[in-house]
């Protein structure tokens, strides 16, 4: 017990200074991670409020809560905020920033000041975009399809694009920082084959961040050029080609989906290993699957254009590649499940989230095969089927993983334990609420309800009511962790360095870690996830 008492007064990255300046000018990767956590939590709830509003509107087939224009601005706000200001930064910028140096035995990321600049750009872009979305509003959808966005919309398109453009630099800086950190700052003995899978998945994610984000920046820039100067790029009336935009946009935005899911796969691998006390089955396959997803993910963008004027032969190729990208994902699911075999399994909150992740990711991934199948996509493209599919991946899986990660590493982040009972209850509530919200949308989509409709045919109502009911449960589910995690900061029990008995360097230092992470740089002599069978 004496070590616990000592821990409380030991100097760590949190109690070293309490001034605002010490936070806002900190180049400590852990503090920057926390800054990101606070920021993206704010954006998550802002984007969530928009979702609540339009789910309420969709309770009835008529327009009663908001009019068409407001509805269109709401779903655009939801998409823009959730994609660029919550999902893309979520796990990498919060947990990645906090954990990558700790997991590889480093004292910092490679470029600490660049890291802080990244957060400022993120906030600048984020707040600017949010103000634009609230005051003027944009009604193009987060996809900005031309020529609607470039020549027809009367909303604040250029300002929004500017905000997203700025934020893109923070993505690039984060990706760059991680790549260099993982290459150059590993502790002695931390060979590539010994890296935790969390690191592998972030390495793959970083490659996408660095390679794809510039394409988005250029594409959005071209919209602005067409809109402001009337240069014909995408609008056929000016001599442009609107399908060209779709190719450019999805060349970024499809890999971006993998930016959102790969880190979640990393978190899940860590949690499964910790709560089964087992090395992840087929470590090498799981690690390489991350890279395979990142690489093949760059070659599938055309599956967004099966009914968009692309040649049938091109579509056939993109469909085949999309099937291929599902294989490494299936390999991961198989290996996580196999890890449970002969494990010593404990069902704490993080594990519930991890198992929920596997389940939702499996459904999201399999329905991905439906939309990758040409003949089915013709019918379900731009319907609620697609909405349900990508929410299973991006909200179901990714947010489950993010929350699982936050709970798992909460002792490390805060030095306190969260309340286990509340944790489990919230995890189950979120899982249930999520499925009730989005499963009916698969049926709605196959019935033929198009997305982005604020009024709809009568026969779609029952499923819409179910979905809205689910969304209200989900909203409560998301508010719970916010409440009890904040509460635990004062009243949670003090965490020991390794409360889960997990392997990994981050558990070999204090909770919370000292400013310099490790008193002495550790020397790594073992593979990741080395558990002795006796330890169960």
């Amino acid at each position, binding site marked *: 017990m004496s070590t616990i008492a000592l821990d409380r007064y030991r100097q760590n990255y949190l109690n070293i200074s309490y001034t605002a300046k010490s936070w806002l000018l900190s180049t400590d990767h852990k503090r920057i991670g926390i800054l990101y956590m606070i920021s993206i939590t704010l954006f998550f709830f802002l984007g969530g409020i928009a979702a609540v509003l339009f789910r309420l509107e969709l309770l009835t087939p008529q327009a009663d809560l908001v009019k068409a224009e407001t509805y*269109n601005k709401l779903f655009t706000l939801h998409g823009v905020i959730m994609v660029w200001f919550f999902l893309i930064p979520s796990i990498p910028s919060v947990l990645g920033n906090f954990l990558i140096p700790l997991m590889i035995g480093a004292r910092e990321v490679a470029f600490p000041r660049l890291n802080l600049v990244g957060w400022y750009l993120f906030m600048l872009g984020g707040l600017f975009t949010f103000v634009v979305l609230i005051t003027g509003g944009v*009604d193009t959808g987060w996809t900005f399809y031309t020529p609607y966005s470039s020549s027809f919309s009367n909303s604040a398109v250029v300002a929004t694009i500017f905000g997203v453009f700025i934020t893109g630099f923070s993505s690039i800086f984060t990706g760059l920082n991680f790549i260099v950190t993982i290459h150059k700052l590993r502790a002695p003995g931390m060979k590539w084959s010994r890296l935790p899978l969390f690191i592998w998945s972030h390495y793959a994610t970083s490659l996408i961040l660095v390679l794809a984000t510039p394409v988005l920046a250029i594409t959005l820039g071209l919209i602005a050029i067409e809109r402001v100067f009337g240069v014909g790029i995408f609008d056929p009336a000016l001599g442009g080609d609107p399908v060209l935009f779709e190719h450019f946009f999805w060349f970024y935005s499809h890999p971006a989906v993998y930016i959102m899911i790969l880190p979640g796969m990393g978190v899940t691998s860590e949690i499964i290993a910790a709560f089964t006390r087992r090395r992840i089955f087929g*470590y090498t396959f799981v690690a390489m699957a991350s890279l395979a997803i990142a690489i093949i993910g760059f070659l599938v963008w055309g599956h967004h254009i099966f009914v968009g004027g692309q040649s*049938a032969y091109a579509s056939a190729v993109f469909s085949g590649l999309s099937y291929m990208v599902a294989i490494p994902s299936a*390999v991961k699911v198989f290996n996580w499940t196999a890890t*449970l075999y*002969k494990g010593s399994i404990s069902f704490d909150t993080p594990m519930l989230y991890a198992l929920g992740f596997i389940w939702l990711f499996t459904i999201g991934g399999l329905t991905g095969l439906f939309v990758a199948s040409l003949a089915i996509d013709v019918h379900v493209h731009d319907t609620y089927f697609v909405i349900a599919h990508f929410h299973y991946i991006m909200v179901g899986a990714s947010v489950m993983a993010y929350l699982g990660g936050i709970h798992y590493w909460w002792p490390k982040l805060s030095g306190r334990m969260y309340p286990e009972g509340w944790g489990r209850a919230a995890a189950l509530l979120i899982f249930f609420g999520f499925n009730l919200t989005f499963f009916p949308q698969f049926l709605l989509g196959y019935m033929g309800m198009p997305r*982005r409709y604020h009024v709809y045919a009568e026969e779609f109502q029952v499923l819409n009511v179910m979905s809205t009911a689910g969304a209200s449960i989900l909203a409560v589910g998301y508010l719970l962790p916010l409440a009890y995690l904040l509460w635990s900061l004062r009243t949670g029990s003090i965490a020991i360095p390794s409360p889960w008995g997990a392997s990994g360097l981050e558990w070999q230092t204090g909770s919370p870690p000292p400013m310099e992470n490790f008193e002495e740089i550790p020397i790594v002599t073992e593979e990741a996830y080395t558990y002795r069978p006796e330890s169960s």
Partner: protein
Amino acid sequence: MVDLPIFPIEASTIAIHVDLLLTGLVAISTVFTLIVLVLMVYFGLKYRRGKTADRSNPPLASTKIELAWIFGLILLSVGAYTWATVIFFNMNRPPEETIDISVVGLQWMWKFQHADGQREINELHVPVGYPVRLVMTSQDVIHSFFVPAFRLKNDVIPGRYTELWFEATKTGEFHLFCAEYCGTNHAEMIGKIIVMDPRAYQEWLGGQPGGVSMVQAGEELFTELGCSSCHVAGAGVRAPTLAGMFGSEVRLASGETVVADEAYIRESILFPQEKIVTGYDPIMPSYQGRVSEEQIMQLIAYIRSLSGETGPEGGEDENQ
């Protein structure tokens, strides 16, 4: 298929194929998810911490099992992929004889022109049991023509022609939705496909005002706009004659060859400098802003008729 209230009605020849494919994929997915679920629950119960179980020598990796798994997945994928792709190519290949209808999408309505000149807005009458081919374009932004009961959809894109063909199998009224977000009243860009008995359809056609067929309307425009002062044999100015041109290969000044299809003619009317026929001077003025998308479709129908192709006519015609 089972007629559940959560399952859309099947009203085209292709719908049954799409639904069978869906059923196949649902079956594969169910098996897959059940395997994951059963293993998860079984291992979870058996190896729960604190419970005694045989945990000796847990396997760490097995290249053999992984490769077998991957190979199995590939086989399954190739099967599903081929199935879906074959149906898709059938969706894209209209039969030889079709009833052709021109479609123009605009914020926020659907406009239709039948070959014999009948026009409709947001309602499209078609006969049951005949293949219908839609040639579609947009006057402003991207729209998407979606008929859930037919399991068919294709984007309607400004500056291009896209096509969609179907053969309805049931009479009745079916939803037509715009599926590509197109601005404020996107959700109200909806309509009805009214599938009729062939006889009722003929009666309906006869009862519509219109009179001037698309070919005739195109011919009138051809004179009115002055096209005829250059593009007929013996005219004062040298311009390519249009008789027999439609569907042929045209050699361009740039050395390329293009097939003279709808898109090519449209482009040549609006942007005549883009593709110059070899041996001719680039002297034709642009008609951008002077003709509507619907008028262009009429001109195309006329030019097409000059090649002996009757083009968009009624389904009863004996065209090849």
